[in-house]
């Protein structure tokens, strides 16, 4: 044999114990926990932007970043669920706006009590999800087309209902604007909306990783045919995912009302793309079945940090666009590099 044998050690053991460079050592550690690789990207970004402008690291600014990513972050929860089933939802922003306008019109224009408006809003979110889910799971249309269609549908409905007018927060009552309540945690200022979003992450993260339903979501996204043959009720799982996502988008509408202080159709222009971006940067595969909600959370933060950090570095808007493009690619390249070289050891 030509391999160098150390007595009492198999060839592979000897190979394992070869000397490693510190970088290889780091990679090996990262590779054991691939889900933290977006975290590395996030930390790198925070350090770089902190160097560019020290104000970036001030607690007040960090609090701001959290508030800024709250909406996309909460939409991205529902988007993650749907992408895990190998779907995609282009209607997230429109569904959110529609719910916001429903709640806003009821509470602000029709004078319905806040709690009722809220409940109808949640129901409306569930119904938008039901529509998408029914078309995907039962009529068996591609999710891209379904949600493209409902994107147009929900957008138009929201506009027709409101005529494009905003309903200011002071007419909405305390419940609907509760998400804007802000309070201090040490040097940080958080809003109830941010806390709500974090809670949503915890609850859905638990549901995905610790319950049978979560496993079924992964199985359906991984290989729908195999899951069906294995006795999973794929139709029911899909439908439930879309409905749950719809309710999440309704909750996002609540966060949105708190954040902009009004129910308005003028927001979240690119919520679809942004939410998908957060999911993908967070390491979830668009082909379904692979990914974690924690990754999405970090993905949303990464994009938020990029935007805020560039603004604080006084980068002009067009150069910001350019830089965001480059940074997104860089972030995913770094992530891939961590995972890949790790995999080859």
């Amino acid at each position, binding site marked *: 044999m030509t391999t160098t044998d150390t007595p009492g050690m198999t060839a592979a053991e000897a190979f394992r114990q070869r000397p490693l460079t510190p970088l290889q050592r780091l990679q090996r550690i990262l590779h054991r926990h691939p889900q933290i690789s977006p975290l590395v990207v996030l930390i790198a970004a925070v350090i770089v932007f902190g160097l560019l402008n020290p*104000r970036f690291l001030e607690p*007040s600014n960090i609090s701001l970043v959290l508030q800024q990513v709250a909406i996309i972050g909460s939409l991205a929860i529902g988007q993650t669920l749907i992408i895990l089933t190998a779907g995609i939802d282009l209607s997230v922003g429109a569904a959110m706006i529609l719910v916001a306008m429903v709640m806003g019109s009821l509470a602000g224009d029709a004078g319905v009590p806040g709690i009722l408006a809220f409940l109808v809003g949640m129901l409306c979110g569930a119904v938008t999800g039901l529509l998408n889910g029914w078309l995907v799971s039962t009529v068996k249309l591609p999710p891209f087309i379904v949600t493209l269609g409902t994107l147009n549908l929900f*957008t138009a409905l929201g*506009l027709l209902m409101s005529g*494009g007018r905003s309903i200011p927060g002071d007419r909405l009552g305390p419940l609907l604007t509760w998400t804007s309540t802000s309070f201090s945690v040490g040097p940080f200022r958080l809003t109830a909306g941010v806390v709500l979003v974090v809670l949503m992450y915890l609850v859905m993260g638990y549901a995905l990783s610790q319950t049978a339903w979560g496993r079924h979501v992964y199985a359906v996204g991984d290989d729908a045919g195999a899951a069906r043959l294995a006795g999973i009720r794929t139709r029911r799982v899909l439908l439930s995912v879309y409905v749950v996502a719809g309710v999440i988008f309704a909750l996002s509408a609540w966060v949105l009302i708190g*954040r902009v202080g009004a129910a*308005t159709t003028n927001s979240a222009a690119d919520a679809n793309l942004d939410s998908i971006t957060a999911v993908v940067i967070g390491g979830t595969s668009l082909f379904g079945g692979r990914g974690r909600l924690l990754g999405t959370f970090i993905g949303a933060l990464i994009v938020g940090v990029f935007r805020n950090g560039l603004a*604080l570095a006084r980068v002009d808007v067009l150069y910001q666009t350019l830089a965001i493009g480059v940074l997104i690619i860089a972030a995913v390249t770094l992530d891939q590099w961590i995972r890949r070289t790790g995999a080859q050891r």
Partner: protein
Amino acid sequence: ALGLTGCAGDSGSGGDPTYVTLITKDPDNHFWTAMVEGAKTAAKQSNVEITTAAGRDQSDADGQIRAIEDAISRGDDAILIANNGPAVNDAIKRARDAGIYVLALDTPTEPADLVDGTLASDNFEAGQLVGKWAAGALDGKKATIALLDLFADKVVTVDYQRDQGFLSGMGIDTKDRKKNGDEAKTGAYSGGDYQIACNQATNGAEDGGRSAMENCLSLNKDINVVFTANETSGVGAAQALKAAGNTGALLVSIDGSCGGVKSVTEGSFGAVAQQYPSEMGRLGVEAVVKHLRDGVNPTPSEGLDFVNTGVRLVTDKAVNGIESISSAEGAKKCW
């Protein structure tokens, strides 16, 4: 973050620059890039540093809110904003609470006293100008009108202000002034009968303008008045008219860029209402500098609650009783 604003008053003296954030409605329309250019030119002369930001598109309030928050976090001295709607009001309040001087550009906020001052031109008035011109130029003929607006998937202020302004300039009852398309489809304008042949969205772009105009012509070949809500869509509409051999239609538009004025010279546009975004940018920066030096706010134009940067009608076919400038003159002021 508040402490820094105090020492920024000595602008022009070569010390710390004055930091101003200019927030436009979207990043790419030439109207806004012209405003940025105007502001930057003025900034160079007075030790002001401009940082630009924008919504993703004209309906993106969230992007503008973020831009305002970022400006607060950066500790900027002033914000110039062309707001995307009342959804940004809260953020503007927070900025002022943080001691930042805020001026509205182009579009007044609702309410107007939300900001320290406003430098704007009235989009409704701009619409009215071209409407009056079209009504006059028709000279009593029946008007068959194509209305080419901006968006089908969002409602933005410019869209209805320009469209409804045009109709009211024509002497047509607009019903709700904030709602496109609710006017009677036929009736009488100030000079005779009218018929609205179509009302289409263009996305404010050339290809959208062309498709919309083509569809309108398919519906009615006799269109003789075309309103386009901005010049880029107007360029597309003019292409469609040319391709269809319709040379008689009066095409009017709003903006007043150099391209638009040239189209007036060449005759593919009948008239444009010229606005002055680079002027707004320049005046905005100057007002900031003046405020930080002297503590004064810009004085509103007579009878208005904002500084009117003006609208002029540019046409080479002047109509009696409507003040206008020639395209040669317009070209001097174009952007």
